[in-house]
């Protein structure tokens, strides 16, 4: 095994968080009007991957599972500096929950002989955070979630991460291959270079793999999704009283009321 690492970055195309609405009649999400963008935490993941490449050497490959137009997020990743990208696209993937989704990404990471997989900590649409541990579990690889700092040790086939946990931090060393879930906002994503962006948006062509290419046709899609969405509705956002009081005493009274209730 060479010292150079193959760093795989799964990225996701999501509806622009500010623009999604619920159709009041059908109760379903109206995603079509919202422009599709790269999941915000994935920018931090790509940046973390690029930083690992700078220190450990190797190449960064972005991967996404989605319909053909999801290639746009691969172009974004390549513009930022990823060396290559793979689009996993197949009707068979339709309706997948996190189980088959992480399987597909795990199979791709395995196929690419990844040493490190760096994921955004969660997506802004479903926000489960389950895919990174899922990828690790499917492949029987180590995992490092809530990572805010990474230290590559390619000579020792190890990656060290600082994990942000309740009440403090821990530093954990994991054997490669390892799956990282990188914290949202934990680094400063770089801007895409001008010529790199032109390249990514014009000449670059991602590889395309189907479920069959990965040998997982029978293991993905709705039929292989343990969870099903039973229904969706608009959230009853907390109805706030929005009472503005004139003086501090009135406010103190309110607070005392609240804290007195046990």
């Amino acid at each position: 095994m060479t010292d150079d690492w193959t760093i795989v970055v799964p990225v996701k195309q999501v509806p622009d968080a500010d623009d999604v609405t619920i159709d009041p009649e059908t109760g379903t999400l109206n995603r079509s009007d919202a422009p599709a963008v790269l999941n915000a935490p994935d920018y931090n993941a790509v940046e973390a991957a690029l930083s690992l490449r700078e220190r450990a050497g190797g190449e960064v490959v972005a991967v996404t599972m989605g319909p053909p137009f999801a290639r746009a997020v691969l172009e974004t990743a390549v513009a930022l500096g990823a060396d290559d990208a793979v689009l996993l696209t197949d009707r068979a993937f339709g309706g997948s929950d996190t189980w088959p989704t992480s399987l597909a990404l795990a199979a791709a990471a395995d196929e690419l002989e990844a040493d490190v997989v760096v994921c955004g900590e969660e997506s802004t649409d479903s926000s489960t955070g389950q895919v990174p541990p899922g990828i690790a579990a499917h492949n029987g690889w180590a995992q490092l979630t809530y990572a805010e700092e990474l230290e590559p040790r390619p000579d020792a086939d190890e990656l060290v991460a600082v994990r942000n946990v309740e009440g403090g931090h821990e530093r954990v060393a994991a054997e490669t291959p390892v799956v990282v879930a990188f914290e949202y906002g934990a680094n400063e994503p770089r801007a895409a270079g001008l010529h790199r962006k032109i390249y990514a948006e014009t000449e670059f062509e991602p590889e395309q793999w189907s479920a069959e290419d990965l040998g997982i046709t029978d293991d993905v899609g709705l039929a292989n999704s343990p969870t099903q969405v039973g229904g969706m509705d608009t959230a009853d956002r907390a109805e706030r009283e929005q009472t503005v009081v004139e003086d501090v005493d009135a406010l103190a009274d309110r607070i005392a009321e609240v804290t007195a209730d046990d």
Partner: protein
Amino acid sequence: METPNYDNEFDAIVVGAGLAGSAAALTMASQDLDVLVLERGQSPGTKNVFGGVLYTPTVRELVDVDDAPLQRYVAEKRYGMLTETDETAVTMRPGEWLQEPHNDSYTVLRGSFDEWFAEQAVDAGATLLTETTVTDLVREGDREDGRVVGVETDRPDGTIRAPVVVVAEGANSLVSEGAGLRDHHDREDVAVAAKEVLQFDRDTIEERFHLDGDQGVAYNYFGEGAVGDAVGGGFIYTNKRTVSVGVAYSIEDAAAGRQNPQDTLDAFKQHPAVAPLVRGGRTVEYSAHAIPEGGIDAVPDLVSDGALLAGDAAGLVLNNGVHLEGTNMAVESGYRAGRAVAAAVDDGRVDDRALATYPEALAESFVVRNLQHYDFFQELAVDDREFLFSELPRALADAETEYFAVDREPKEAHAEAAKDRLLDATGGYVGAAKRAWKYRKLLS
């Protein structure tokens, strides 16, 4: 990681994917040129502000207008003169406007239209990069008078070269000024505009403005009731489900502290003639922008050192009080610039002599001809502001009140009084005649 270098891979770089930029890019791409368009906004149109109405004669030459995201066509125009309390207006609904092509006048939302228009250029083969701001032009040998051979942007490794650069950066023309292609706009040559987009539902808009289907209105107001004692006016345009209401006036007045755009806009919205039209709308957007209004004298050299200027960056906006046109001027200039570049590239020569076909063609076109014809107007409006914006509106209001007064007096007296009031304001018949002479060019 190997990244190709795109220096001189493109035949032309276009700065800005607004109306002028996309028109230029589309024209060049249709002639098989490789064009790179650099837009600073997240998508084309996000940084663009106008009243406004899109005038489509040239647009129609370039694209299929039926596919474009248009809001309403202008079925009715109104010119209103406002004192603080009165309105005197002329409303026009020529039957012809109700038929295709609707006098080539449509309201649009820039975020949608510009994005679509830029897409047409991309479909024709242009490359569009968004979220990329051009910060400077690159000159050969870094010499102040060196040929323009590319642009610098705010991205890492952000310099790229090309034989021709079309600068369509809009009214805030920092790049062309910084590169010495034009002077900074004189105060007196710029207007400031503030605009709100108010949300209603279709039914409310149609009822309130008496519209059917895709019909829309374009209202323009001036007078002291519109923008106080500044030189300028207010406007209302109807979109499908929203109404654009705004004010635009000379930046000299703004700077002198006489007015602040937000307050001016609020006051305009509260005018008794305007308030009922905008009542109840939810503000979904507020924007402010500059409008070049220097007329023909403020238009710089359109070609210099291998760079072409188009649209607002070249000061190509017509404002003679009744005609407020920037969109068609931008598209026409972009189109002409594109054609000139394509012809020059075809000929294998892109020096200024070869590119001169651009200003030459523009000089023959309505763009320059109109600017020249109305070049008297701006100065005249400023000189005559007291009369135009205060005395005349007041005189008309008083005269109307007098003339149409209902009482038990004989009408003759009222008519007399109305006439006297008007002549008072104009300086008698002679004064009126002098004025008519001064403003004759507006009608010829």
